């Protein structure tokens, strides 16, 4: 304490209480310590792993690859901007020479950069998750409200729940290929396949948890609803939904976590131009940089997964009636 207070005069002025310091320790310093240990472990460990593509990349190499990817993104964007300025000046010149000249406006064929791929992945996972949720929540409510329905559906859900995305993919691919044939498709086939696979795998936790939450509405509240003679719709809206929100969000968060994991696998196989494909392409590419770039992708996947979960948590505390409830 005396060392601390000599270093930080604010402490002696009584502005920062010992509890604050403890919070600071636990909240900021301990995570930092963990991170530093991880980096050291990584650096040392990496040097001892020799692969066919050279030694395993340590934190420094990965950081270098990250800035490479950022640079690539910038150059690509610049190329695009240059292409369009070039095109407009050329067209303007052509018109100046001959007003009747035929002008061509072509689109820049964009080569997706790392960041474009992140965006594709996010869009794909959110589409799949959204589709899954709008199916799973109403289904969960119906199943939860009716004991017989619950009994009828439970075995089906339990069987479908553990199916790996890799098992779904061939089926989904074949089904989509035969069903989705159009000359100028609105969506790429690989996108549809990835979305459907994500959906199929992320339906179940939301459905089960919603059903359990709905079935667990307190008997007292159900009696209130009956005595007040609420209509079915009001009953669901005012009694069932608010009391099952915590369970529903538990399910949604599980589902989103699964959706994100499944997406990477689905993209690898379906060749949807997202992070999964990025990892796969780098793996096939096999240059000396590949391992570092894969590591960047792996960390990105982790961080995005974490942020997705936090976002949903924020939505939960917004949707939950009990603002004092601790959600984690």
């Amino acid at each position, binding site marked *: 304490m005396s060392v601390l207070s000599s270093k930080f005069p604010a402490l002696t002025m009584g502005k920062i209480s010992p509890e604050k310091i403890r919070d600071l320790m636990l909240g900021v310093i301990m995570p930092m310590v963990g991170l530093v240990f991880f980096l050291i472990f990584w650096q040392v460990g990496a040097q001892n792993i020799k692969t066919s593509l050279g030694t395993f990349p340590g934190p420094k190499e990965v950081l270098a690859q990250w800035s490479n990817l950022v640079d690539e993104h910038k150059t690509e964007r610049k190329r695009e901007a240059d292409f369009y300025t070039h095109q407009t000046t050329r067209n303007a010149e052509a018109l100046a020479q001959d007003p009747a000249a035929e002008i061509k406006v072509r689109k820049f064929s964009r080569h997706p950069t790392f960041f474009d791929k992140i965006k594709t992945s996010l869009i794909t996972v959110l589409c799949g998750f959204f589709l899954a949720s709008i199916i799973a929540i109403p289904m969960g409510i119906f199943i939860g409200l009716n004991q017989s329905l619950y009994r009828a559906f439970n075995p089906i859900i339990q069987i479908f729940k553990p199916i790996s995305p890799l098992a779904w993919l061939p089926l989904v691919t074949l089904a989509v290929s035969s069903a989705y044939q159009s000359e100028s498709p609105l969506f790429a086939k690989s996108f549809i396949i990835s979305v459907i696979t994500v959906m199929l795998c992320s339906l179940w936790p939301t459905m089960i948890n919603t059903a359990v939450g709905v079935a667990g509405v307190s008997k*007292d*509240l159900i*009696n*209130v609803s*009956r*005595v*007040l*003679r*609420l*209509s079915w719709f*009001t009953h669901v809206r*005012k*009694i069932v939904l*608010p*009391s099952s929100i915590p369970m529903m969000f538990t399910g949604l968060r599980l589902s989103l976590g699964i959706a994100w994991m499944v997406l990477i696998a689905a993209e690898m196989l379906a060749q949807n131009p997202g992070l999964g494909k990025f990892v796969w392409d780098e793996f096939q590419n096999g240059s000396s940089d590949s391992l570092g770039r894969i590591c960047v992708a792996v960390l990105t996947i982790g961080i995005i997964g974490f942020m997705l979960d936090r976002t949903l948590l924020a939505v939960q505390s917004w949707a939950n*009636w*009990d603002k*004092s409830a601790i959600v984690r």
Partner: protein
Amino acid sequence: MSQLHLELSSVGIDFPTPKGPFSALHDVNLKIMQGEFVSLIGHSGCGKSTVLNIVAGLYQATLGGVILNGREVNEPGPERAVVFQNHSLLPWLTAYQNVELGVKPVFKGKKTKAEMREWIEHNLELVHMTHALHKRPDELSGGMKQRVGIARALAMQPEVLLMDEPFGALDALTRAHLQDSLMEIQNTLGNTVIMITHDVDEAVLLSDRIVMMTNGPAATVGEILDVKLARPRNRLALADDTEYNGYRGAVLRFLYEKQKKVEPITVKRTEKPAEQFAVENTSITESKQVA
């Protein structure tokens, strides 16, 4: 009292349990007049809540039935409102919204929006809750929650008010205050009231009649006591009143002599001498006798 309002006619109910049907009530008969205040009193677990739930339409009687205004009722209806034992407010709605939830289905199409609001506020005013209209149950004290529960029931403008130990969980002062409010409200509105209570003083103070129930299983009406104290009643004036204390004594005698609660005896024959077993056994049969 004027006219027959509500009748329980040889009501019996069996609950299905893993060990076979459990007969909670048997042959309960009760006639309640328009505007009458009836208390149900009896030991814990004897079946008071079950009686109330049958009248509310939440449970179905296995035998017999409930007749309201000459018609049998089997499900909840707008003419019967319930105040639950544990207030049962919806925790995500404010006091106002909780009352509104009960008001809406009853007055849909009969009152305009403004009238509806006025009516809700009026009912919350009856229970002196206007200062906390927009607070949620977790911001209210136990007594306040109970008052909102009563306002919600009153706002449905019921003919019959069913209350399951409405003041059971409250401290003595709050309870006395709410009892006075209830007497006042019932005096002006003239509802028929059935109230469950554990409190002998509360029963005597509020009721026109006290229905004393025997111990379960197969509980039924033991005695009915007419309380002929003049209204309005004042708790202070009645404290030393001999008539009041006479009623009080009658209820106490029923509960603690005639229906003395005997814990179920599990006699291990090897451990206990035979005579003691015989003695305990007779005490059970005695306690079962209905006065």
